[in-house]
């Protein structure tokens, strides 16, 4: 009998706590007063005042309710403490009532309400303006800084692998060309140069494709691929303005008539590549320094630069030289292998090519792996 009573009372109370007569005044109160509640460890003195007001409000509401339904305080309390009222879901319903006695609970309710309102406000601003104004996004949020850093790293990685991919592509083009005709020896110089430029300067392939177009007819597919790559390159340049690499890239992108296209005719007319490779003369070294200088966007002649700048340029020049030598060596090997077998032109071919001892099986495997990776990456990037 008493149990039945209790159950009935509990149900009635829960019903009341979900009704507008309770929800509207309590929510109103919380929304009006929650703005001072932050999640600082220390409580403000004003919290206590607001808690007192809240107690009064709840007391009044519950008194009215009990009068209306015709139960006394004892019945109300019995119902609230009955096992029936202690289920998880009902505990949440009772929270606003319990908060009258428990300041900590009250505080957390208010802090939560404040946060909800703030998020709502942000959403409304976003919906209206399309984006948040600077004053709301400028705060140095540790999280976003980390995310930005992550993005930068990701872009750097993407760029790197794109370079590798481009390198691979130009290499393949070289191969195809050589297979196509042996009389092209004069015209493949620019291509080689453009390949170098790509790998050395991490220049955007926009510049690259210009060089290629200048030097030889490129198949449509390839142009498309490089064009997409070029756009990607530019995007990443925009995204991470802090890295030195990208600055180089950006400045190159501005003047697409960069070195290879201009320089190529002159050089190819005077020097076959093999000769140039063997000559480590003073003029060659100077040319490399000069190239590095231009690449860095420094307009002053080499001799007028500060010591540290000179040093930097020297390093860069050395690096360029090294890269060029590598490329030449590679090309030489490929030429040899070309002579022995034409099947080599498809790099996906797993034949270990026994006729060319210069390229070890291991190296080939590595090359294939790289190409596979680049292909996959390209696929992903283009899909996006």
């Amino acid at each position, binding site marked *: 009998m008493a149990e039945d009573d209790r159950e009935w009372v509990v149900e009635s109370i829960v019903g009341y706590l979900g009704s507008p007569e309770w929800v509207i005044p309590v929510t109103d109160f919380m929304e009006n007063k929650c703005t001072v509640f932050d999640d600082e460890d*220390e409580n*403000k003195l004003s919290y206590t005042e607001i808690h007192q007001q809240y107690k009064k409000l709840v007391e009044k509401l519950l008194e009215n309710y009990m009068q209306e339904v015709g139960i006394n*305080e004892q019945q109300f*309390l019995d119902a609230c*403490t009955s096992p029936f009222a202690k289920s998880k879901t009902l505990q949440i319903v009772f929270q606003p009532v319990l908060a009258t*006695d428990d300041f900590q609970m009250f505080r957390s309710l208010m802090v939560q309400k404040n946060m909800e309102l703030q998020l709502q406000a942000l959403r409304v601003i976003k919906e209206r303006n399309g984006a948040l104004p600077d004053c709301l996004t400028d705060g140095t949020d540790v999280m976003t800084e980390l995310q930005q850093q992550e993005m930068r790293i990701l872009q750097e990685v993407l760029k790197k692998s794109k370079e590798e991919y481009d390198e691979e592509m130009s290499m393949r083009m070289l191969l195809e060309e050589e297979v196509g005709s042996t009389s092209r020896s004069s015209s493949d110089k620019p291509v080689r140069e453009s390949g170098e430029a790509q790998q050395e300067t991490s220049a955007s392939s926009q510049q690259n494709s210009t060089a290629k177009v200048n030097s030889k007819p490129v198949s449509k597919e390839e142009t498309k691929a490089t064009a997409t790559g070029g756009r990607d390159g530019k995007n990443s340049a925009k995204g991470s303005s802090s890295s030195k690499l990208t600055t180089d890239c950006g400045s190159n992108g501005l003047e697409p008539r960069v070195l290879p296209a201009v320089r190529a005719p002159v050089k190819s007319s005077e020097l076959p590549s093999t000769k140039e490779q063997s000559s480590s003369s003073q003029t060659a070294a100077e040319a490399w320094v000069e190239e590095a200088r231009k690449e860095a966007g420094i307009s002053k002649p080499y001799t007028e630069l500060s010591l540290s700048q000179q040093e930097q340029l020297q390093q860069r020049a050395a690096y360029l030289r090294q890269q060029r030598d590598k490329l030449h060596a590679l090309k030489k090997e490929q030429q040899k292998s070309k002579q022995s077998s034409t099947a080599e032109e498809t790099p996906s071919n797993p034949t270990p090519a026994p006729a060319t001892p210069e390229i070890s099986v291991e190296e080939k495997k590595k090359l294939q792996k790289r190409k596979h990776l680049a292909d996959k990456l390209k696929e992903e990037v283009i899909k996006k």
Partner: protein
Amino acid sequence: MGEAQKGLLSVIEKLKGTTEQEVRIVLLGLDNAGKTTLLKSLASEDVNTITPTQGFNIKSVASHGMKLNVWDIGGQRKIRPFWKKYLENTDLLIYVIDSADKKRFEETGLELSELIDEENLKGVPVLIFANKQDLATASPASEIAEGLNLHTYRDREWQIQACSAVSGEGVQDGMNWICNNIVNRKK
């Protein structure tokens, strides 16, 4: 699980008996006495980054099978008028004194005697922490007790405990006294 309403206090006491016993402790004293440091030391938190309290702090500490809800309210002169808003239903008062600040012994004595006269603290046990004993210039607890005329308190339990909230020395002794006292009182 207790529903709480002012008119129903008698029943609430009973309801709370079903769960672990909760004790409301108010931590007061002049500014710079070390109340917040003491509170954090009780809660085993870092005591190196404490700034003057503008409002109040609350920590719940479990001790001797009881839940001690300790309220630390700022001690600056402009905040002191708010103290009396926090005294309702208080089971115990902790009063903290800077033992090295001799110039303000009189001031702190006045504040304490005002608290003792508060209606809401009638008969409420008081523990006085003679804090900052780690400082060379600190007065001993016995001297402070004399200066505060503690021996004239006849209407309640009291205790003075020398301590250093920074090092933690003496703090546990004080807490033991509190728990013993509360257990005796509630029985």
